[in-house]
């Protein structure tokens, strides 16, 4: 299955299996973590398409190929983009669920979708705490913090910090075995998002894709 880029409204996305009527949205982690896992998520998209799904991963404002700059991005921009992608896909088929990674999980309730699957969900306050540890105060000012090599609105950081992980009724949570927090399933693997360089984990992509497909199918029949 080949990956293609396309625009969904004003939001760039990569996708596989666009001819399939059953659609799934994949939300990447936010900020630098997204770059670290992008290749593994691309493998995951291909696996989802092989299971007869149209898999779509949007680049949200300030991230990836999106033309908006991160230094102007607010939490509403991120959540609105997720809602727009879901609405656009609903108009051409059925969105059976949303699979989100890390801090992407903070946005998954913005889409009007029943089945939620999460991998290693990161709470907003932990995300922001880790980002603030990288702050270069010589480049920060009153309105923007320079974190992880980028200028980010302080109100985005404040809003993310206060944003709870939602508790949708149809939710499955998967974590790495090294993570002691509660989960429906713990899987072997290394936290790619913490690595110094982007990496690729085909075995993890395969395992997660299988779990997503099984879970989404069980939600569809229940």
């Amino acid at each position: 299955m080949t990956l293609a880029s396309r625009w969904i409204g004003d939001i760039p996305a990569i996708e596989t299996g666009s001819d399939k009527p059953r659609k799934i949205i994949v939300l990447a982690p936010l900020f630098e973590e997204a770059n670290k896992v992008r290749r593994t998520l691309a493998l995951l998209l291909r696996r989802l398409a092989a299971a007869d799904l149209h898999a779509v991963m949007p680049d949200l404002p300030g991230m990836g190929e999106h033309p908006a700059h991160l230094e102007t991005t607010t939490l509403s921009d991120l959540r609105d983009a997720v809602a727009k992608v879901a609405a656009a896909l609903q108009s051409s088929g059925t969105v059976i669920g949303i699979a989100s990674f890390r801090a992407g999980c903070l946005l998954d309730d913005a889409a009007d979708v029943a089945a939620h699957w999460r991998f290693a969900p990161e709470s907003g306050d932990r995300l922001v705490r880790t980002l603030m540890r990288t702050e270069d105060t010589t480049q920060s000012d009153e309105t923007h913090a320079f974190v992880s090599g980028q200028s980010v609105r302080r109100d985005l950081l404040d809003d993310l910090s206060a944003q709870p992980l939602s508790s949708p009724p149809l939710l499955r949570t998967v974590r790495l075995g090294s993570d002691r927090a509660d989960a429906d399933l713990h899987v072997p693997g290394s936290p790619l998002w913490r690595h110094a360089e982007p990496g690729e984990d085909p075995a993890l992509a395969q395992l997660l894709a299988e779990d997503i497909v099984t879970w989404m199918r069980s939600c569809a029949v229940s």
Partner: protein
Amino acid sequence: MSNERAALAAEIRILLSDVLGIPPERASAFDDDTELFGALPELDSMAVANLLAELEDRMEIIVDADEVDGDMLGTFGALVDFVDRKRRP
């Protein structure tokens, strides 16, 4: 060295290998005197942030900003001691 501390040191070697992207064989040679911050080029500010976040996830501890300094990350032994102290009730 107590068995408990040795087990903790082994976990932290794996964690360093994961976060710094160094081969497990290299991390497995780390002992208490191995210098970390300032001696490992891989341990830049982003890596420190990721290391602390991963320690928090795996060890169920919270590391405050004022606890992070050159001493705590100076040597492998100092890092293990720090986590060991944080994990005690």
